[in-house]
C-alpha cells in the first residue's frame, strides 16, 4: 500500500527531525516534540506490524521515549506544583521545587546524551 509506506516514511522523518532539533537545543518544547512524534510513530508501527514488521525500529522508538520520560515527568510535575501550591505551604514547597528543577536539568541532559546516539533514518 503506497499510502502506508509514505506515511511511515513521513513519520520516521518527523521523528528524526525532532530528535536533531532537541539535540541542537534541548528546550521543553523540543522535548515535547520528540515525545509526540515518537508516540505517533510507535503507534503507527504497532498498528501495521502485520504489514510492515519493523521490530528493531520499534525497539529504538520505545528506547527514545523511555530516555525522555524522566525529563518530561519532572517538568510537568514542577509546573503543576507551582500552579497549585497552597499559599500557606509555599515555603515547604520550595524544597520540593528545587529537587524537581535539579531532576529536570539532569534528566534533560541524560535524554540529550541518549538521543544523540540514536538514529531513525537508515
Amino acid at each position, binding site marked *: 500500500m503506497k499510502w502506508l509506506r509514505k506515511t511511515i516514511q513521513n513519520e520516521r522523518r518527523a521523528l528524526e527531525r525532532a530528535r536533531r532539533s532537541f539535540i541542537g537545543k534541548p528546550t521543553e518544547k523540543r522535548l515535547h516534540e520528540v515525545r509526540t512524534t515518537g508516540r505517533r510513530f510507535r503507534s*503507527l508501527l504497532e498498528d*501495521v506490524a502485520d*504489514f510492515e514488521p519493523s521490530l528493531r525500529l520499534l525497539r529504538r522508538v520505545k528506547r527514545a521515549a523511555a530516555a525522555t520520560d524522566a525529563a518530561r515527568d519532572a517538568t510537568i510535575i514542577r509546573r503543576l*506544583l507551582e500552579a497549585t501550591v497552597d499559599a*500557606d*505551604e509555599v515555603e515547604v*514547597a520550595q524544597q*520540593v521545587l528545587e529537587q524537581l528543577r535539579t531532576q529536570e536539568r539532569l534528566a534533560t541532559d541524560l535524554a540529550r546524551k541518549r538521543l544523540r546516539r540514536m538514529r531513525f533514518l537508515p
Partner: protein
Amino acid sequence: MKPERVDLQGVSNERDLIDRVVRTRLREVERLAGGLEARDNQVLHDFRIACKRLRYALERFEAIDPSLHDAAERLARLQDALGEAHDRDVLLMILPPPMAQTQRRLRREREECVDQAASLWIELRDLISL
C-alpha cells in the same frame, strides 16, 4: 500495557486497513473504560494509553476519511482530562506530609478531572461505538 495485535490478514486496501485498526483500538478502549468507574490510578492510566492509541489512529486516517475528525477531537479532550488526573496522582505521590492543603486541592481537582473524563466518554461512546 501492550497493544492488541491488529489482524491485517486479507486487507488489500486503505478502507479495510482503517476499519481493522480502528475497530481493534476501539475494542481496547471499550474494554478498559471501566477504569472511569473504578477511578484507580493504574486502570485509568491504561485507559488513557488506549485512548491515545485510538486517537492517533483516527488522526492518521483523517486524511482518507474526514468523518473521523470529530471523534479524534473529542478523544483529545478526554485524554487531556485523564492526563490532568494522572499528573495530579504523580505529584500527590511525592508531596511531603506537611503539604496537606495542597494535597487536598490536588485530590479534589483529580476527582473533577475524572468526572469530566467520564462525561466526555459518554458523549464519545455514542459517537463511535462498535
